[in-house]
């Protein structure tokens, strides 16, 4: 009798528990549904078109006045590269060209065509013509694949392969912010492009935001709590997955550049989070060790950023509400792009391997301060 009562009580408790969990779960799903319904689809915010190999590439021949705000224009050439002046594949005699590869930082998200780091570099290194071969949202893998496929069409003597910390993270993904992308893997020591042809994306997507909402579900939250969610641990997990691939990419880039009679320079662009020492430094140290081991030139602008007075740092980055265009905040402001170009030029001059590549310049030009136009 007593045992039956106990069993009944237990059964009632279990049923009530399941009902409570069901109600809590239904509430959670309902709240997520509300969030998803409130999402406004971002319509091809990268202004890109589908590419079977790269996932996406800039729309060709764009001329959009006030793209990011008043006076902040966007122009691309027939190959979807961002341009600040007419570009031809042929190089005028006596001119040297540098190709800038990278993501939105090199592309110049939020700034005008002539205010990107790559464009400013022409001011800093007279006689050098630059070609912006960066795309918004690219990982190291995509920037490499684009250069490998199309870089040879534009004769050049210098290849500035720029990236930020997050570009390593993107290498571990088959889609980023709703756009499908390729993924590089190593097989028998050789780079293999997978998820290719890249699945088509619609251009109008809620997918990324929906993923974010679902990732905040309580079920995922509980699973995440079980693991180490520190930045160090996250970076370590990514590096375990992609570092050897990234090293192979850099090595192959050096080979490609040698074939194309160009000098490769890896350029690490710091974000605002890296203004203070933190978990990203370990990756930078590994990168530096790799550079020393292989002889591939590396310019890391992080120490330069940390030398900038604190009150000036704010002016180097686009703040949260400065530009009402999706995905602009956090990137270098015009002043930030100018700063990056100026520091990059100084470091490029210090690289012995580039003495034959860079056009000879009046030294007094380099001694100039942080002057720049339109900032």
């Amino acid at each position, binding site marked *: 009798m007593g045992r039956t009562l106990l069993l009944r009580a237990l059964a009632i408790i279990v049923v009530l528990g*399941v009902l*409570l*969990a*069901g*109600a*809590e*779960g*239904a*509430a*959670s*799903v*309902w*709240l997520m549904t509300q969030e998803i319904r409130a999402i406004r689809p971002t319509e091809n915010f990268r202004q890109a078109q589908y590419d079977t190999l790269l996932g996406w590439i800039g729309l060709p021949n764009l001329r959009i006045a006030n793209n990011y705000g008043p006076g902040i224009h966007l122009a691309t050439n027939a190959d979807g590269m961002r341009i600040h002046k007419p570009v031809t594949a042929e190089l005028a005699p006596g001119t040297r060209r540098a190709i800038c590869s990278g993501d939105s930082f090199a592309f110049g998200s939020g700034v005008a065509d002539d205010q990107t780091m790559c464009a400013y570099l022409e001011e800093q290194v007279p006689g050098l013509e630059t070609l912006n071969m960066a795309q918004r949202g690219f990982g190291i893998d995509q920037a490499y694949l684009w250069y490998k496929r199309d870089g040879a069409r534009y004769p050049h003597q210098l290849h500035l392969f720029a990236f930020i910390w997050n570009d390593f993270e993107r290498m571990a993904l088959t889609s980023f912010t709703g756009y499908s992308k390729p993924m590089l893997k190593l097989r028998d020591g050789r780079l293999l492009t997978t998820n290719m042809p890249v699945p088509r994306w619609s251009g109008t997507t809620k997918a990324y935001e929906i993923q974010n909402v679902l990732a905040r*579900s*309580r*079920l995922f*939250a*509980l699973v995440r*709590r079980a693991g180490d969610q520190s930045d160090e641990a996250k970076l370590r997990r990514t590096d375990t997955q992609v570092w050897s691939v990234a090293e192979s990419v850099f090595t192959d880039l050096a080979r490609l550049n040698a074939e194309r009679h160009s000098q490769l320079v890896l350029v690490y662009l710091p974000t*605002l*989070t890296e*203004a*203070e020492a933190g978990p990203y430094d370990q990756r930078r140290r590994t990168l530096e060790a790799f550079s020393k081991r292989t002889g591939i030139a590396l310019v890391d602008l992080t120490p330069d950023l940390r030398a900038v*007075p*604190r*009150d000036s*740092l*704010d002016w180097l*980055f*686009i*703040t*949260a*509400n*400065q530009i009402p265009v999706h995905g602009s905040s956090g990137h270098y*402001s015009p002043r930030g792009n100018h700063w990056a170009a100026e520091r990059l030029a100084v470091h490029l001059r210090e690289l012995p391997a580039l003495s034959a590549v860079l056009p000879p310049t009046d030294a007094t030009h380099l001694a100039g301060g942080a002057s720049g136009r339109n900032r």
Partner: protein
Amino acid sequence: MTGPRRQRDRGMLRRVLIGTAIVVTATVGTIFVLEGAASLGIVALDVLRAHAPALRPSTRADSVLAWVGKANYRGANAFGRGIDVSTDSAGRRFTPGAGPNASLVCSGDSYVFGLGVDDAHPWCAQLQHSFTGLSVSNLGQLDYGADQSFLLYERDTVLGAPRVHLFAITASSVERAATRQAVGREKPFLAVNQGRLTVVNAPLDRSSTTSLRLAAMWRALDELQLMRLLRQQPRFSRAAATRAQVNDHWPVFTRMLGELAALDSSRGTALALVYLPSSRDRRKSGLDAWRDTLAADAARLHVPFIDLTPELRGLRPDSADIAFITSPTDVGPFVGQYSDVGQTWVARTLAARLAATPDLAARLGSASHPSNQAPPHPAARSR
């Protein structure tokens, strides 16, 4: 088709439909139960781990004000690398270069204290450079309600009457003034009894660790998704409840401002009410109604009311962005407080407004050259 066969087909169709419905219901139900169980698990963990919040290191318990600044506190790197916090012998935020007799006193909460910035950067300290010969005293206290600021000023400035008193109010300090507790800790609560403004719960019971922990546990329960859903209903909305609480308490608040004006008047001090906008004030909202009421109260009391909200809204978006601390730090969540740049902006804007108010300007002395109005801020944080 024969009758029995048609009947058999219908039966099959019904079975398929019922089977599908069972599978769909079971799947959805399982998802709900798993999601709900995870949520209950998270909340249960948070409830079990909830602990009694300690007083901030720079403060100590007080039987009337709940907490006040510790005397002669020195917190090296207390707000981050190179950002020190010090207090003077009276427990007030130390202001470099301030003399013993303050001619200007600033009252208020963390926006006055300068949460997240070093001793030289609270706007009150910077005001010292705006007027020749001015000496300031920063009475701002972390997490204070406007009522606590009033009581602190009333109690602790009896002997030294300043020439000018800037009583700074933020939306949060108004909200806190309408409550009896701050994160579970008893705080003074003002009411009007028999026509007199009184602290109804003084001396305060020292909040026990258990009661503070229980309050923390209760806050953890707020993370239940059912609670979140419930809070969406106007009847259970926390924001609506806070609004109603403040509106109900406003007559007491008005009375408090009246007593503050009378107190300062009796001491020969010129009072000015200052509304310090937070990031919540960047856009029009229900908070505007409180500012309007404050302006009306100030006008009735013939007290200058300086509201910096229009100036904040007039800033370029990027300038307004960097006026506030935006990133959490290792030592504390100072997000939303004025950054060094924001403090300097407040000091400059306020100095201009004070200089334009004849009675206050006469008491503060001549304005310094604009270039001297605020010290440089080499340690400005980029958060």
